[in-house]
């Protein structure tokens, strides 16, 4: 960081930083694209940083910006959460765009891929590129049973549902950790349903003795 800039930022309280100060800080920490997002968003001064409890000092803000390597896929979870809560869509879009499509975008308390986060938080400007990235990954993973079993994570399955407008199913699929192996089971069930495969044989005499559904409202 340029010594003169560092000297200024370290000498004044964070809450008094201007938007230019925040952008300069990002540049100084090796995040020029983030600085551009701050500038494009506009009015992201020190007060916004403090208001959202993102950070409270030059030192902690520097640590936050320098602690992550966005391209690594670990992302800026805290920074993204702050941008979403403060309704800074340009900043959020930039942070989401850095994430690989199959990793959780937010800290552990709020799972979800970048695409899911963009959809659920109405970061609509980020959606087209995130859809493309997720789609490209799934295509690269492949659709064979072997590919599904070995390559597809639960996050990939969530992205697949989102890409096909089945967002309502995502929470349940995530809760049950539906991954590629279970999608193979779905495909197998389809083969059974269409008659291509039959269910395992069972002893039907035993079935008829044991079929029992309690219907207490039935008449005598």
């Amino acid at each position: 960081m340029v010594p003169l800039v560092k000297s200024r930022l370290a000498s004044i309280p964070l809450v008094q930083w201007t938007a230019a100060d925040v952008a300069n800080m990002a540049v100084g920490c090796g995040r020029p694209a983030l600085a551009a997002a701050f500038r494009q968003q506009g009015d992201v001064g020190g007060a916004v940083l403090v208001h959202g409890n993102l950070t409270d000092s030059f030192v902690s803000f520097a640590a936050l910006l320098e602690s992550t390597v966005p391209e690594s896929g670990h992302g800026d979870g805290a920074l993204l959460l702050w941008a979403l809560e403060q309704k800074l869509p340009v900043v959020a879009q930039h942070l989401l765009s850095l994430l690989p499509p199959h990793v959780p975008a937010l800290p552990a308390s709020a799972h979800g891929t970048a695409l899911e986060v963009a959809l659920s938080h109405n970061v609509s400007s980020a959606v087209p590129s995130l859809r493309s990235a997720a789609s490209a990954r799934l295509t690269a993973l492949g659709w064979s049973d072997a590919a599904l079993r070995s390559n597809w994570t639960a996050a990939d399955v969530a992205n697949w549902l989102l890409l096909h407008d089945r967002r309502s199913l995502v929470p349940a699929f995530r809760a049950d950790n539906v991954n590629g192996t279970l999608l193979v089971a779905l495909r197998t069930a389809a083969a059974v349903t269409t008659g291509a495969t039959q269910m395992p044989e069972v002893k039907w005499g035993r079935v008829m003795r044991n079929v029992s559904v309690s219907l207490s409202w039935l008449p005598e």
Partner: protein
Amino acid sequence: MAADGEAAAEGEPTEAALLAALDDLRTRLLWTVRAAASGSSPLSAVMHAFLHSMGAAQVGPTLLQSHPAVPGDGTLLAWIHAATHGTAKSALLDHLHPHLHDFLAAQPVAEWTAAQVCVRRPSRGKKGGHRVVSH
């Protein structure tokens, strides 16, 4: 997404086929039931979501009509009873019973199928016993 049917070789699984499987009511139910029966992946949240979206009017027939995949023209409900055991069976039937009740309650008894007639209720005064409800 990949252009299904264009890039895929003949016989190769496609995304479209998987999507169709997800949207087929019988496949949905069969998938979750088989997973629950296996005991390895209960898929309870998925089943709940499916049942909620399908409703009793669709769940009832799916369970009580003759299922093409069940040997001997059996119903899916009969297969569940035969192929599941213990807590997996209890959990599964706990999911399905309310929908089955709603479906049967909405059907005139005179129009019940044989499979519906074979649904039993516990007998009074007989510990552990069951009595067939017949009409």
